[in-house]
């Protein structure tokens, strides 16, 4: 297992990142809504409050203008001009009557002569006539009286708010002129309306502004400069006020407007709803992004990591990644599969090369050592032969015959005896040399035996086992059948071999399977079966509590009888002639399979009945 320190899993990192992002998004949205959107609503609300106050003031102004218009309609009129001058007494009877005030919407009306003498006046308070003096503004000592009743110039008129004893009023005063606005001024016409609750109600109805005015609101009047509106934002509304001046230009009354905070309330609700919507939308987007990340990236990467771990643990480089998408992750998986495939091929090539190179090196070393060892042995034996050849050339028999010859002189006989003696000593010497040569030959033979014993040690080294796909090995092994012979032999490989994997030495297994397939092919050839058939299949089998994969190679060739089945895996056994013998033999196959922790067995129903060879190998773990 890897000892690399593992940080947070990718999925946790992605989840935390998304959580932080959504929190930042919600906070940012809240800040934007509160700092940008809400002040806009407040500004809008303040604008509405200003508009309300303006509309309230304009409504009062409109009433005053209307009053001025009525006054301007009545004052320049020959009939009233004549009446004030005492020349049209009928005017009073026909025009200066109560219905006139009702029709004109007036609360009071007064006609003054040029000498400030009241000619006619009428005051209605709550529908009842009252003396005009009850107002107090026409009294000689009142500050308003001169402005209202002393209009001796045709181009001067007065209109505005005036405080009376009965409350504030709208008043308009104009000089009485001829109908063509020509003088001389005959007197003054004064008209007025109370700024009472009834008027306030009408103004509220008309303006739809919650408005009122205070006459005695000194604090309000002092607090606000004359003519300048002020606004106070309260919890339930914005209170606006403006101090209005009377006809003298002095502060008279404070006009109030109350604008409910419906806009900011609505804005607050809107902001809250928007925040809620953004939060929900953000959460939904986050969940969607998280799901998409998980489905399209995290899960495939998780599978890729698991796949890599599985490959590392199983060593099966042919195990394919279960990612089907064609996006970058899919391409990555496919590239990883291609890479592992290439690594697998490179590993196989390396193993093959290493195996062959190892074999070649071993063979070269053995050849070199054995031939070197054989050289002195051969030369020793050759020398031995030469020595004996020299012994063969001795003329002992001839010397013996000469000694037996009676004509042979004593001196010559002695010489022959010396020759025979020397010959025997020479033979003895040759024997001693031969013993030495044989010792050398024996020593060299032992050296050769030692070399072979060394090879035996290497032969016992277990080959490298790896995870092998059965389909891949079978596909490679069937190439032992000559291509030209394929049409004559029906090679049937059962589907689904790719679902089996075994742990075995690849080269060894290839050689075993190749040998068995070749045997089957040759058995078919020998039996001259008209339709040769080799069937290869695989299945799982349990052997001594171990899960095995059983590979079966079945042919319809010559088969074998019961006696043969007992000896078929014995050393040296073959059913072929020497010329037919190829490959490594079943004895070798049995040893090779056993060295891989497997078994091999053969079955046949008898001669001419075909044969089955079963190779059992340990199933690969995790393959």
């Amino acid at each position, binding site marked *: 297992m890897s000892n690399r320190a593992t940080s947070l899993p990718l999925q946790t990192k992605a989840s935390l990142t998304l959580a932080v992002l959504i929190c930042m998004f919600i906070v940012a949205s809240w800040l934007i809504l509160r700092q940008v959107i809400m002040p806009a609503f407040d500004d809008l609300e303040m604008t509405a409050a200003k508009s309300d106050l303006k509309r309230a003031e304009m409504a009062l102004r409109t009433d005053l203008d209307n009053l001025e218009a009525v006054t301007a309609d009545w004052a320049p009129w020959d009939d009233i001009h004549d009446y004030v001058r005492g020349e049209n007494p009928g005017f009073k009877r026909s025009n200066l009557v109560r219905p006139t005030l009702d029709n004109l919407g007036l609360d009071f009306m007064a006609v003054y002569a040029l000498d400030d003498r009241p000619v006619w006046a009428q005051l209605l308070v709550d529908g009842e006539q009252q003396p005009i003096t009850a107002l107090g503004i026409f009294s000689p000592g009142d500050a308003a009286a001169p402005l209202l009743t002393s209009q001796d110039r045709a181009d001067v008129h007065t209109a505005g708010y005036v405080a009376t004893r009965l409350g504030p009023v709208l008043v308009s005063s104009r000089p009485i002129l001829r109908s063509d606005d020509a003088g001389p001024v005959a007197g003054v016409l004064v008209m007025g309306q109370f700024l009472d609750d009834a008027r306030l109600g009408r103004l509220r109805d008309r303006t739809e502004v919650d408005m009122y005015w205070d006459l005695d609101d000194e604090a309000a009047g002092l607090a606000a400069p004359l003519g300048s509106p002020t606004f106070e934002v309260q919890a339930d509304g914005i209170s606006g006020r403006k101090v209005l001046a009377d006809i003298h230009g002095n502060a008279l009354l404070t006009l109030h407007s109350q604008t409910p905070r419906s806009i900011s309330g609505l804005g607050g609700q809107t902001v809250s709803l928007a925040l809620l919507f953004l939060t929900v939308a953000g959460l939904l987007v986050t969940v969607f992004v998280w799901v998409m990340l998980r489905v399209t990236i995290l899960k495939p990467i998780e599978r890729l990591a698991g796949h890599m771990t599985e490959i590392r643990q199983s060593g099966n480089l042919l195990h394919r990644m279960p990612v089907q998408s064609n996006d970058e992750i899919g391409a990555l998986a496919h590239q990883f599969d291609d890479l592992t495939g290439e690594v697998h091929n490179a590993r196989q090539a390396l193993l093959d090369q290493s195996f062959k190179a190892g074999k*070649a090196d071993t063979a*070269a*070393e053995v*050849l*070199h*050592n*054995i*031939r*070197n*060892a*054989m*050289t*002195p*042995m*051969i*030369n*020793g034996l*050759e*020398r031995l032969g*030469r020595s004996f050849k020299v012994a063969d050339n*001795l*003329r002992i028999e*001839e*010397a013996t015959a*000469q000694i037996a010859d009676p004509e042979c002189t004593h001196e*010559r006989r002695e*010489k*022959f005896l*010396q*020759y025979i003696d*020397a*010959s025997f*000593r*020479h033979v003895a*010497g040759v024997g001693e040399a031969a013993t030495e040569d044989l010792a*050398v030959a024996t020593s*060299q033979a032992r050296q050769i035996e030692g070399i072979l014993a060394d090879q035996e040690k290497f032969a016992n080294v277990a080959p490298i086992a790896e995870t092998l796909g059965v389909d891949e090995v079978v596909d490679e092994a069937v190439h032992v059948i000559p291509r030209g012979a394929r049409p004559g032999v029906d090679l049937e490989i059962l589907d689904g071999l790719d679902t089996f994997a075994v742990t075995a030495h690849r080269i060894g297994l290839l050689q075993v399977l190749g040998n068995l397939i070749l045997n089957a092919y040759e058995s078919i050839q020998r039996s001259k079966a008209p339709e040769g058939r080799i069937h290869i299949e695989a299945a799982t089998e349990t052997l001594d509590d171990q899960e095995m994969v059983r590979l079966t190679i079945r042919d319809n060739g010559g088969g074998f009888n019961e006696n043969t089945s007992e000896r078929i895996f014995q050393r040296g056994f073959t059913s072929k002639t020497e010329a037919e013998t190829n490959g490594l033999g079943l004895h070798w196959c049995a040893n090779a399979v056993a060295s891989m922790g497997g078994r091999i067995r053969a079955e046949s129903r008898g001669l001419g009945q075909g044969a089955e060879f079963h190779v059992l190998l340990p199933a690969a773990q995790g393959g």
Partner: protein
Amino acid sequence: MYTVENQEFIRVLVADDDEHVLECYRDAFGEQETTNHMKALNELAAELFDPVEDIVDQPKFDIVACNQGEDAVRQAAAAAEKGTPFDVIILDVRMPPGIDGVAAGSAIRALDPDVEIVFVTGYSDVPLEELQRRVPPPMRLHYFNKPLSFTQLADDVVTMMREH
């Protein structure tokens, strides 16, 4: 080759890392040891029996043996410097731990383009074509596989020198 008292000598340098093999070379290329009783036997045979056919005089060998490729190159260089180059140099191919016979042969060929070089090996992973390329010319290059009869090799060397 050189001659002493009408006896021709072939100068042979042998390099092989196996002492037993070197012994075989010495045995096959060296002068046969004649014991006293052999001398007496031969004198008696000459005195008592009719003479057998004379053996044609064969050249003898002046052999120098070493067990490493570097030694062989040094010996060859020294002999060439003295003006008494070897006629035949017999090299094993594999001679660990030093340079192999091919490298030694290549170096010797650079010193002496005329010397006959013979490779004798139990196994060589260098193909003959490669040997011929590295130790030219092919007509001065010979190759034998062990095991072989060194007596026969000695005869072959004599033939080689007669055809040189």
